[in-house]
């Protein structure tokens, strides 16, 4: 250890110590991310190769890819993948489309718009779980607010969450109450980033608002749209709370989303192996989505 007995040595010591400074600044964050974000991904893959179902004799043992074979053969798991596919194909384009329209609406410069923007932010603060409980009460087939309003209007009572043909749609509606205003913020920022010259010249050329929106604004927003579509999709793959709280996957497995099935297998039946196999499939799908996004959104220089 060199002693800082004259100026040059002190400088040298400082340079040596400072070579490690960046890593000291980074260590807590990087270690925490590796241990609690990345190791679980690997652990999920590892656990998917073992069985430890409570029904099995002999506890945890290595089974190779058997869990994936079981997934493939299990009709309930298949159902959960199918429900998730239908759900994803509906909820994500729906939320992106409505969020774009909402962003265009709150991008209008009219008096009082700031008040409306603030109101539309409110759902973002409310947890998906409270939203689910609140809308679950509002959609109650016997007492709910919505059926009360429908009856006042002379319309027939709806079963909503307790009917297989309406339950998934009800859940899509419930989560969109948060999702649409949330994603619209990204589109609003994108719209505000469009230079006014471009819009001005479209206006001079006599383009209608609709035409300007479709031919000018949408193409300019394509990076934001791609980002939101991917992020919304991978986030919605993990949807759990509304299913857990409101439908328990039913009626007739119509809302049996894949994260609920993973939780049921892993935490209710204690079969972490099967649950991890389900999660591993989902992780691979998510990584593919995110990788495609990285490639599409790579800055073009």
């Amino acid at each position: 250890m060199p002693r800082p007995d004259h100026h040059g040595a002190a400088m040298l010591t400082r340079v040596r110590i400072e070579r490690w400074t960046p890593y000291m600044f980074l260590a807590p964050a990087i270690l925490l991310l590796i241990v609690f974000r990345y190791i679980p991904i690997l652990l999920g893959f590892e656990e998917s190769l073992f069985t430890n179902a409570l029904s099995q004799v002999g506890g945890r043992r290595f089974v190779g890819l058997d869990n994936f074979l079981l997934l493939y053969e299990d009709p309930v798991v298949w159902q959960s993948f199918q429900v998730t596919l239908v759900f994803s194909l509906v909820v994500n384009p729906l939320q992106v489309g409505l969020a774009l329209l909402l962003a265009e609406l709150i991008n209008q410069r009219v008096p009082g718009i700031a008040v409306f923007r603030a109101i539309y932010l409110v759902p973002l603060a409310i947890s998906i779980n409270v939203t689910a409980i609140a809308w679950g009460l509002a959609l109650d087939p016997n007492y709910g607010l919505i059926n009360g309003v429908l009856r006042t209007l002379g319309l027939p009572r709806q079963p909503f969450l307790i009917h297989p043909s309406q339950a998934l749609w009800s859940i899509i509606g419930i989560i969109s109450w948060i999702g649409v205003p949330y994603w619209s913020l990204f589109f609003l920022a994108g719209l505000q980033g469009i230079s006014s010259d471009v819009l001005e010249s479209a206006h001079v050329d006599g383009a209608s608002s609709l035409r300007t929106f479709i031919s000018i604004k949408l193409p300019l927003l394509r990076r934001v749209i791609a980002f939101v579509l991917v992020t919304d999709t991978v986030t919605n793959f993990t949807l759990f709370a509304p299913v857990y709280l409101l439908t328990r996957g039913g009626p007739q497995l119509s809302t049996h989303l894949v994260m609920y099935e993973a939780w049921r297998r892993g935490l209710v039946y204690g079969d972490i192996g099967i649950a991890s196999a389900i999660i591993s499939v989902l992780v691979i799908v998510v990584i593919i989505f995110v990788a495609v996004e990285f490639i599409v959104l790579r800055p073009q220089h």
Partner: protein
Amino acid sequence: MHQDSPSDHDSARGFRLEPATITRLRKWRRYALLYCLLIALAILILLPIAWIIASSFTTRETVWKNVLPFSWRAFFPTEPTLDAYHAIFEKDFGRALLNTFFLGAVTVVVGIAVGAMAGFAFARLQFRGKNLLFALVVFSFMIPGDLTVIPSFVLVRDLGWLNTWQGLIVPGLANGIVIFLFRQFFAEIPQDLIDAPRVDGATWTQVFLRIVLPISLPAVISAGVILFLGQWNNFFWPLLVAPTPELRVVQVAVSIIGVEQQVSLWEQMFASSTLAMLVPVLLILPFQRYYVGGILGSGLKG
């Protein structure tokens, strides 16, 4: 709406209107349409919330009174009583609130420290492996945290952290979005502000603590709001790792009142939901600029 305002066709067919008048009427029609939409959406957002709050001041007997048959009173507490609140506080809802405030406070303080340090290194320091480590941060927030809840549960169980504070807190301390946010903010600090103390011999730690942090209040607030909301609204993770009543958090407490009872405790569901949503709503409104800026930074510049 179309009946209210003359369209181009009307004017062409008979009434000869000045072009200026037509422009004004068109503008007026556009405003009317816009405000109708804006108000309809505001109602869609505010009425359910008003209904939840109003219903939280009812009793088991009166909770549905104004819904069937439906009346406007459903949205206003006309005969308010605190029975439902008394009932949930007897079930230790107060402890859940305190627990969650504590969790949120620790996460905000430590999470800001961890995130700001990392953000500073990425924005201002040169070192080997920077791009790789930064990719690790960005990728971590592209993968939703709830995706790996089950393997994370296995990890925390194997660490012996089930039903402990550290099991609830530690996995959420490093937040990729918060690191990213600080990096963006620190990158825009003028070079001179940092060079001057460096020339005078200040260490990077001194520059970080004495120069950079004091001028970074906006980023600190954004990060704090994001971290607090994340903890307050977290449900899946505490449901799995801390089922013990001593560590119950507010979202789990709401769900237990909501679904895990044999009888439906309607008015208590309304009361607990009201408290669970009021805290973050009251937090987000004064800080909306910081919150919006924080979440947008993750998407647009990334």
